[in-house]
């Protein structure tokens, strides 16, 4: 990629004037010559003196005709290509685009959309229309500059200190096993090129040494000596392989390439067998880290209401809606290829309502726009629900037959009343409605043969059946999980929703009960009227009422399109629960034009629910016949990486452990990650991880094709093929469109010494096999060694509900033409929960209904058995994480005192388990604990149009468009690159702070833990970690709210050193070429991970990731922490003036072209003063 150094700066354009200084006289002379026709010989002769170097040609009238058009071949030649091929562009942006690369002289010169989507077919021959074409974006079309870019990972590299440690035989502290810090200077050390075989051997030896060190009683003792939580040490069960962590980033984006990480984790059982002689029955594999939840893409309340990971729908379904709520989602910048569905729905008459914490890009496409206070989505939704119920606008049949709202709750225990408590000798009814109850020890049918929910007999027994109060008969009636929708209607019950009833139990005891509806209504009426919600959200009460009525007026025609904005707050599960409540009350769940969807991340690996064939193939007995299914045995264990992100700790409140047993992680001593900059380089709390967590990790390997900040901090970087160089096919899907994609094999030769991700996994395993003299490691990846991934792919297809019937060869052939297939789900397009809504099937919950009441102890203790609004945990002007509600008899959270915690402790750690209830007015009288110290600005970090995370944001022709500060010439040498990140701040706030548009500012979050714990004692690291960026006067964010886009590469030791040492001042690491777009810090300087008790229960019932089985407690990417990375309240100070070199204003402000600096002409322009109609 070309460098745009000022050294190459061209002369000013004005210098190109004709040499004669005659100015306008000369210009007018030339012009006159042209007009009178220099083809006329006489004039030409006269003119010869003045324009002697002009050749005289007979062009009389270039508007009419032009003689010399032969030159036009120049551009035809430039355009022509020798050949083309199709590849799949699949960053983590949920789209996936088959793109055509055009090749000239062996080099990809340009890239274009395939226009093949309209040829896509499903297995029945059903197709998609041309309205799907084209699919691409600017990041993908710029990839040619990335495939050949100078930051490609070009050859295997090892960090010098790591190699020294390995070469010295992995020396350790005798007692604790800890590694000397001199070997762990990551990010500061030179890199040593190694051969592929050396790289594999180094990784293999490191894995074996770490696993051996931490195996057995002695290994566990070492971990305890290093200070790890005893519960985490216990969780290893003495298997050293359990401290090895593997992560394929967004693995759904590469079923065999990226999921190879988890397959490798499974293979580690062979290591355990060798080290501890366990045999195949007792061996334990490694741990694999989560994705969808780690990225805070999981909407954690979806499983709490529906039992399933996420309800969503293909975005094209807005075609069928009348009312579209784009809520906390900047659709037109983050779902770009699907933006036309929204604008076309609007064109066709649907109403678009945009709810955001700013006037977002998407707001400009809104028919109605609401600007809300960040983090108040639960309150807004509860306000809508209150109004819908208060005005009687809810759908009674839907409430009675589809939700838990009619079910009775015991007012004494807060538990749902069970039929067995009421009716003597009651036995749970046999289930027949799309539910299979398996006997103990039975596992049920294979996934593709599962007709509906699969639950164990013990679960069935434990959940029991529930009770409604039948108004007609005036008594209790049992309801089981079959009885939803029409099956409930057939019972002829008239469930009483209002008031308290006294139920006589079989024991003779009489207990007061009320319906979930009644308990919810009482809470809503007391706490969340439109007037109260207006105080919380700042949205006028009238607008809340109006929106509630509009939703109620559009049953089955209102789509709730929720984005990651509200999801990245600590109250995200409450947000989901509240939004579903509104949708369920108005019959807007599971319909093609009326549904709830959450859009963040491309996570739907579950569409490949036969994936066990690959990931969990039994390493002790792999299936070596490509035509047969693989024997499956899962030895690896999923784990949430949020604990590692939390300084490798679980959550405790005093002595109480708030991380459920099923969630407990192990200590992290080795990390191998592929295809992701989110775990290290762009992680929430990045600098705290780098400074405080990573030094306890003994080995870090990264597979990448582009040198990211994650590579900067690795021990080995394995360079892998880009999407344009894949040697074997792979496949993926999308959460937002209905296509099944194959990455075709590329005809382009590898540009560098790279290999495929699966080849890296196979190479490491083979090297382990050589170290341990065990051929099983190589056998496990035999097809990879033979250069063919197709048998693995076909096995996955054959065992997946939505894929069975597809042939990999056919899919690949079509993909090579630029044509995807259409996934064989139940409907085209995909509609989440369609079966529940349209076929009256039960939800994946205990009751089979949408559940708005959570009786489990973790929820009771958190004061979240009913749906409440909690203030954000940091991004609030008020007391953080407060439960905002009036007293309610069923709200009985554990107080800080109950945990033995100081109730006055409002620190960012203690907040996580602080359950204090205040009503709206009491809340508004409080202040954030850091308010007095100047922390007064909400700082949020959403994603934007110019990057898919960090992908392509440092490609010059893409980077230059990222916001207003792009400058190819780098007029200001302080710029880290040809562009840089900026803080969007309301001009009035900026003025108050003495900050001008374009100035550099410091942005600091809670000094207790950010940018990293202990920064006060570490000036060198603080200089790298403290966030500095330009300030942009941005009128689109309200006062008190600031914004910085998530997408850019942050500062590293190397980039900061580069900005000082490089002649051109670029923040480019001298050693590696890593390019930062910050002078120091990153947007992740101000964020951190958080743990919320309701994310970590052992009791919540949810469907597993793959297939129809219902399970309980921790499920990676379904029920586990999500972190709250959007939350931060910051202090802002001016650092330097924005003018070049730190002098004065930057040019556009000086010219009067910026908000807050408008010249008279610009003011006149905005007001329309340059046109006047006389009639």
């Amino acid at each position, binding site marked *: 990629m070309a460098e745009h150094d000022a050294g190459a700066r061209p002369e000013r354009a004005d210098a190109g004037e004709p040499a004669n200084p005659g100015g306008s006289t000369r210009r*007018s002379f030339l012009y006159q010559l*042209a007009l009178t026709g220099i083809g006329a010989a006489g004039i030409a002769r006269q003119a010869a003196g003045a324009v002697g170097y002009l050749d005289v040609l007979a062009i009389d009238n270039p508007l009419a005709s032009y003689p010399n058009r032969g030159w036009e071949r120049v551009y035809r030649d430039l355009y022509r290509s020798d050949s083309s091929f199709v590849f799949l562009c699949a960053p983590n942006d949920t789209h996936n685009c088959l793109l055509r690369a055009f090749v000239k002289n062996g080099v990809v010169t340009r890239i274009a959309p395939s226009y093949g989507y309209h040829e896509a077919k499903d297995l029945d021959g059903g197709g998609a229309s041309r309205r799907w074409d084209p699919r691409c974006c600017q990041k993908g079309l710029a990839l040619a500059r990335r495939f050949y870019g100078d930051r490609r990972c070009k050859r295997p590299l090892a960090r010098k200190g790591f190699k020294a440690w390995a070469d010295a035989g992995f020396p350790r502290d005798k007692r604790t096993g800890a590694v000397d810090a001199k070997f762990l200077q990551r990010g500061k050390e030179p890199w040593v090129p190694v051969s592929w075989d050396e790289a594999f051997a180094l990784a293999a030896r490191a894995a074996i040494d770490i696993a051996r060190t931490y195996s057995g009683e002695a290994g566990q003792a070492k971990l305890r000596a290093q200070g790890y939580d005893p519960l985490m040490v216990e969780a290893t069960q003495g298997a050293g392989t359990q401290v090895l962590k593997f992560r394929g980033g967004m693995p759904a984006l590469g079923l065999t390439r990226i999921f190879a990480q988890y397959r490798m984790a499974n293979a580690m059982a062979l290591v355990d067998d060798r080290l501890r002689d366990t045999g195949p029955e007792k061996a334990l594999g490694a741990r694999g880290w989560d994705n969808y939840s780690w990225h805070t893409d999981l909407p954690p309340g979806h499983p709490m209401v529906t039992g399933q990971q996420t309800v969503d729908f293909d975005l094209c379904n807005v075609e069928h809606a009348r009312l579209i709520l784009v809520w906390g989602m900047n659709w037109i910048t983050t779902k770009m290829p699907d933006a036309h569905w929204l604008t076309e729905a609007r064109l066709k008459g649907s109403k678009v309502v945009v709810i955001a914490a700013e006037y977002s890009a998407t707001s400009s496409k*809104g028919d109605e726009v*609401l600007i809300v206070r960040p983090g108040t989505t639960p309150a807004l939704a509860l306000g809508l629900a209150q109004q819908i119920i208060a005005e009687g606008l809810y759908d009674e049949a839907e409430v009675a037959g589809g939700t838990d709202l009619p079910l009775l709750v015991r007012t004494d225990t807060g538990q749902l009343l069970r039929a067995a408590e009421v009716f003597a000798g009651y036995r749970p009814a046999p289930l027949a409605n799309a539910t299979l109850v398996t006997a103990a020890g039975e596992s049920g049918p294979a996934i593709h043969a599962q007709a509906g929910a699969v639950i164990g007999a013990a679960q069935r027994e434990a959940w029991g059946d529930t009770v409604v109060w039948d108004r007609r008969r005036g008594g209790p009636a049992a309801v089981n999980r079959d009885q939803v929708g029409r099956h409930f209607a057939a019972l002829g019950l008239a469930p009483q929703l209002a008031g308290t009833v006294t139920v006589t139990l079989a024991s003779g005891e009489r207990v007061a009960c009320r319906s979930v509806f009644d308990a919810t209504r009482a809470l809503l009426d007391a706490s969340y009227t439109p007037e109260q919600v207006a105080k919380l959200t700042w949205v006028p009460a009238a607008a809340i009422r109006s929106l509630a009525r509009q939703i109620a007026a559009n049953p089955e025609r209102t789509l709730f399109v929720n984005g990651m904005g509200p999801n990245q707050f600590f109250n995200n599960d409450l947000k989901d629960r509240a939004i579903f409540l509104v949708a369920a009350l108005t019959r807007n769940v599971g319909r093609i034009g009326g549904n709830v969807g959450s859009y963040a991340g491309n996570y739907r690996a579950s569409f490949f*629910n036969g994936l066990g064939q690959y990931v969990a193939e039994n390493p002790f007995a792999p299936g070596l016949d490509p035509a047969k299914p693989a024997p499956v045995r899962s030895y690896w264990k999923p784990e949430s990486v949020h604990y590692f992100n939390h300084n490798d700790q679980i959550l405790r409140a005093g002595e109480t452990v708030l991380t459920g047993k099923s969630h407990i992680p192990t200590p992290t001593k080795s990390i191998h990650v592929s295809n992701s900059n989110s775990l290290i380089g762009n992680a929430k709390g990045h600098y705290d991880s780098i400074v405080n967590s990573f030094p306890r990790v003994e080995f870090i390997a990264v597979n990448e094709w582009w040198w990211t900040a994650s590579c900067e901090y690795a021990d080995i970087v394995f360079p892998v093929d880009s999407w344009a160089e894949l040697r074997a096919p792979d496949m993926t899907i999308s959460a937002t469109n209905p296509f099944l994609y194959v990455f075709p094999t590329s005809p382009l030769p590898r540009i560098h010494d790279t290999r495929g991700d699966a080849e890296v996994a196979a190479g490491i395993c083979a090297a382990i096999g050589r170290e341990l003299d065990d051929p099983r490691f190589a056998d496990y990846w035999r097809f990879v060694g033979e250069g063919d991934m197709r048998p693995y792919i076909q096995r996955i297809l054959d065992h997946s509900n939505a894929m069975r019937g597809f042939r990999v060869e056919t899919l690949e052939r079509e993909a090579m033409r630029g044509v995807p297939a259409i996934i*064989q789900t*139940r409907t085209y397009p995909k509609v989440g929960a369609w*079966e529940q809504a349209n076929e009256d099937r039960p939800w994946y919950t205990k009751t089979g209904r949408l559940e708005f009441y959570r009786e489990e102890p973790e929820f009771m203790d958190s004061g979240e058995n009913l749906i409440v609004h909690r203030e954000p945990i940091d991004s609030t002007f008020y007391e953080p994480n407060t439960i905002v509600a009036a007293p309610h008899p069923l709200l009985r959270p554990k107080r800080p005192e109950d945990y033995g915690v100081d109730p006055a402790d409002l620190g960012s750690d203690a907040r996580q388990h602080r359950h204090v209830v205040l009503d709206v007015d009491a809340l508004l009288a409080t202040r954030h604990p850091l308010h007095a110290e100047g922390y007064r600005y909400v700082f949020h970090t959403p994603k934007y149009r110019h990057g898919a995370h960090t992908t392509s944001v440092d490609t010059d022709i893409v980077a230059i468009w990222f916001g207003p500060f792009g400058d190819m010439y780098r007029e200001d040498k302080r710029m880290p690159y040809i562009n840089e990140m900026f803080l969007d701040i309301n001009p009035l706030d900026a003025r108050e702070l003495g900050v001008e548009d374009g100035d550099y500012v410091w942005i600091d979050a809670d000094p207790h833990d950010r940018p990293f714990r202990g920064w006060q004692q570490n000036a060198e690291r603080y200089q790298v970690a403290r966030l500095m960026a330009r300030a942009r006067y941005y009128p689109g964010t309200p006062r008190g709210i600031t914004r910085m886009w998530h997408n850019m590469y942050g500062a590293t030791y190397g980039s900061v050193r580069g900005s000082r040492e490089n002649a051109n001042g670029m923040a480019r690491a001298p050693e590696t070429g890593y390019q930062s777009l910050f002078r120091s810090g990153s947007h992740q300087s101000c964020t951190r991970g958080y743990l919320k008790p309701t994310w970590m229960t052992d009791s919540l019932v949810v469907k597993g990731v793959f297939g129809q089985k219902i399970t309980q407690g921790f499920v990676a990417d379904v029920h586990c922490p999500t972190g709250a990375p959007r939350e931060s309240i910051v202090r802002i100070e001016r650092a330097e003036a924005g003018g070049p070199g730190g002098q004065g204003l930057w040019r556009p402000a000086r010219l009067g072209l910026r908000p807050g600096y408008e010249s008279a002409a610009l003011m006149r322009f905005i007001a329309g003063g340059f*046109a006047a109609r006389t009639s």
Partner: protein
Amino acid sequence: MPKRKNWQIGREQDYPYEAAPPKRQVAYIFDTNKCIECQTCTIACKATWTSGKGQETTFWNNVETKPYGGYPTAWDLRLLEMSEPARWARGVLETPTVFEGLPPNQPPRGHRPEVADYGAPNLGEDDVTANVEMGMAFEGIHPMWMFYLARICNHCDHPACLAACPRKAVYKREEDGIVLVDQERCRGYQECIRACPYKKVFHNVISRVSEKCIGCYPRVEQGEVALCVEACIGKIRLHGFLSTREAPRPDNPLDYIIKIRRLALPLYPQHGTGPNVFYIPPVHVPDAFLEQLFGPEVAAAKALYREAARDRQLLGALLLFGATNKIITRFAVQGEEAVGWDDAGTELARVPFTEPHRVRNFFDERHGAYRHNTT
């Protein structure tokens, strides 16, 4: 100076040359209500045509946010400041174009940007016209607003670049009206850069000649739309031809939308160059601002757009945007579909008004699998 008829300003105007119109005129419609400013068009163009040395800051296609954005910086504001405010009477422009009201023998009224004006190409991105306050709720015309304006060369009927060139190195192709700078003949005087009201001619400091959008003629010659149109994922663009020597044809989607329904309007028609990129104005922006940009028919066009849902013929034409990367020259609405053809009558695109919804069998007997939406 000869007079030429300019249908966009409802009168004749001065122009240095007279000529019959081209056989047909390449033209584009951009729907600002659908533009998402993704810059995919920009990159599709840049990566193919201007990725060489000396072209670092050249973007033949760009998308800018109005009113604060502009590439090059303040390109339009500077010309507006040099011009009399546009005054219209019953669709007739009463004020002078850039070719008029000048002393004798002067090139068109214009200004030449400085080098620094080609920095900050995305200045003003997303900036709105007034401070947003928390808790605001509004409908209709937004109290603070911005919108995205995608821009390429307008391949004008009366090109100012052509008029200004002392070398007569700029010409208009008779077969399609594309305006080109002859790369062999140009000597880099940059008069075209000064004259173009849209600043869509660029100086290459390495080759020292002027370069501009070539209308992707190597593609147009093959019946294919321009790269910026092909890559437009907002599906805001329709690329085709306006009839020039015959009456507008209702089955030509560009004639129909631009000339017959007058839904899409020229950008700065008051400058008199007869631009051939036509914009559907943004419905959420006040008329007063838009009339400066798109002339006096803004309010009517916005009202028509808001009614398009009930206007099958118009809606059908609008749904053909982006449906194919070939040039549609004829269209029709057939039942619930809009169809487009080329000159030879080959069907190029057929799109449904509503993307179909299908329900598959729960149990797929052929493949022995249950088909679920929740897997």
